[in-house]
C-alpha cells in the first residue's frame, strides 16, 4: 500500500518538476505499455499456476462479468441522477 503511493508520488514529482525531456516522456509512455503487458502476463501466470483458481475460472469468469455489468449500470445511473440535478443548464 505505502509502496504504491511512494511509486506514484515519486513519478508525480518527476513529471511535475519537468525534469524529463520530450524523448524521455515518450519513452515513459512506451514503458507503461511494456510494464502493463508484463504485469498482465505475470498475473496471468499466477492465475495459471494456481490450480484451484484455474479450475474455477469458468465460474469466476461468469461472476466477474456480472460484477462488470453491475458496476457499469450502477455508475451510469448515479451519474445520470447527478447530471440531472447539478448539470441541468448545460444540455448534453
Amino acid at each position: 500500500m505505502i509502496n504504491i503511493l511512494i511509486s506514484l508520488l515519486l513519478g508525480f514529482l518527476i513529471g511535475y518538476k519537468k525534469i524529463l525531456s520530450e524523448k524521455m516522456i515518450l519513452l515513459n509512455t512506451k514503458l507503461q505499455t511494456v510494464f502493463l503487458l508484463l504485469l498482465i502476463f505475470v498475473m496471468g501466470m499466477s492465475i495459471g499456476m494456481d490450480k484451484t483458481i484455474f479450475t474455477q475460472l469458468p465460474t469466476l469468469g461468469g461472476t466477474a462479468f456480472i460484477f462488470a455489468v453491475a458496476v457499469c449500470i450502477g455508475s451510469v445511473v448515479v451519474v445520470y441522477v447527478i447530471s440531472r440535478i447539478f448539470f441541468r443548464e448545460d444540455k448534453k
Partner: protein
Amino acid sequence: MSIVILITLIFGIVTGVFAGNTIDGIFVEKMSSLLLWLLLFCVGIDMGLNKQVFVQIKKLGFKILLIPFGVAVGSLLGGSVVSLFFPHTLKECLAISSGMGWYSLSGILLTKAGNTTGGTISFLANVMREMLTFISVPFIAKHINYYCAIAPGGATAMDTTLAIISRNTNATIAVMAFVSGVSLTMIVPILVPVFL
C-alpha cells in the same frame, strides 16, 4: 489494446499452466509487485506532466468532482446488488467494485490480502469493465447523456478509454472524463484496502 491485453492474459495463463511447476511462485509474486511499482511510477510521471488539468478544474469548479463521486458511489451500489445474489460477502463485493476498472491494481490488492479468488474476480471484472466501456460509451452518449458516457470507464477514463469518450462527446466532457479518471485512480489505492 483490450485485444492485446486479452491475448497477453491468456498467454500468461497458458504459461502458468504448462510451466508452473518449474517456476517459483514467490518469484512471480515479487515480479508482479515490482512491475506494479514501476508501472505506477510511470503513471505518476504522466499525472505530474498534465498541468492543464488544474486549469480546467478551476474553470469548472468543484462541480467537476461530482462525476467521479457519482462513478464511485454507483460502482459500489452496483457491487452491493451483486452481493444479494452471489455467495460473496458485502465487503468482498465492495472491494471488487472499488477497482473502478483499474484491473492491475485492484486484482493484486485483493490477492495480496489473501483472497486469491476475489483477486481473480476483481481482475477479470475490471478488465471486462474496460471492454464494456469501449462497447457501451457510443450508445450511452447517444441515448442517455454525455456525462453518463464518463461513468463506465471509471479510472480508465484518464487513459485507455479517454479516446472513445472524447470521440463520442465533446472537448469539455473529455476534460471532465480525464479529471474523473485521475480522481478515481487516486481513490482506488485508498478505497480497495478499506474493504479488505
